[in-house]
């Protein structure tokens, strides 16, 4: 059977990002009845299997090579599919690179809604579990294009490294500034892994 998260390969990923991913996964489970598992899926990124009985939990299988940032994107995208009513009983949604025909249209719609949900523009179930920093227009503009995105991420990581090295993080522990920095880094990591979430249009200026 598919593995639990603890069996996934350990990567050098930020704890804040992993915590955020876990929080979102639990939110999906509790509010949308989506049980997530991890398994090797080859060329497929994820599968959402919907049972015949709507009262039963849906099953989401994600490729076990996906990073925490990629998993966060899949959760938001799946929440968008569910909000659009694509989870018809006994119909499986397959997330892969080469969707065609009706599938492509469904995925495009979900992509657009996911982008809106991500930047907290849609009043969706998942919005409450997303970082508050997503309402920042400045951050959104900085992450819209590949060049500024890379630069922003680099700058945020630099600030974090400096804050740790100088001991500022310890002094400002639990302050709004450190929370903002952590959240901004998470958001930058997710948008870098899934540029389609960037607000600069399709592909997010890839």
């Amino acid at each position: 059977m598919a593995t639990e998260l603890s069996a996934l390969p350990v990567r050098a990923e930020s704890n804040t990002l992993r915590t955020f991913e876990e929080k979102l996964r639990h939110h999906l489970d509790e509010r949308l009845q989506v049980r997530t598992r991890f398994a090797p899926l080859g060329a497929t990124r994820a599968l959402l299997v919907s049972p015949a009985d709507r009262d039963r939990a849906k099953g989401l299988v994600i490729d076990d090579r996906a990073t925490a940032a990629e998993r966060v994107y899949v959760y938001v995208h799946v929440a968008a599919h569910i909000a659009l009513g694509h989870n018809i009983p006994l119909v499986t949604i397959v997330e892969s690179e080469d969707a065609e025909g009706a599938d492509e249209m469904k995925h495009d719609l979900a992509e657009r809604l996911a982008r809106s949900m991500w930047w907290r523009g849609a009043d969706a179930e998942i919005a409450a579990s997303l970082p508050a920093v997503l309402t920042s227009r400045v951050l959104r503009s900085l992450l819209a294009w590949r060049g500024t995105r890379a630069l922003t991420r680099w700058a945020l990581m630099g600030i974090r490294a400096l804050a740790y090295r100088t001991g500022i993080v310890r002094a400002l522990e639990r302050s709004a500034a450190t929370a903002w920095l952590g959240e901004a880094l998470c958001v930058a990591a997710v948008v870098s892994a899934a540029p389609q979430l960037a607000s600069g249009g399709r592909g997010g200026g890839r």
Partner: protein
Amino acid sequence: MRIQDTERVSRAVQTLRGTRSLDGLVDRLFDITEGSLALDRATLHRIARGQTRVARAIDTPQDCIRLYFALMIVGCEEDVPVETVVEEGHAILAGFVGDPLAALVFRDLSATLPKLRDRSALKAYLEEGLRIWLPS
């Protein structure tokens, strides 16, 4: 439930079990379905040998569908080619529950399969399919 084409179902089971003995197959089926399969060992043997028209202990279509998913998972584990797993799985389901319900379940697989390009993705899909048909 009345098995509609005992010979075809038997052939499908024989193909999907690969190199496993009948007892080994039954053990694995009970294991995969977490003991939820309301089917005794002797009946499974008779189904596999094509010697029964009525699977006495299979009372519900849900049990048939669980058995269908479990047999296909065994096929994947035994390195049976993906196309054969699907073809034989369809034959089993149609044999157990009849074509209308089999077509309903199989429509999803037919639409989904071309998107699952390798055995690991097919197996993950079948495992999830089985999970949602297991008793809660």
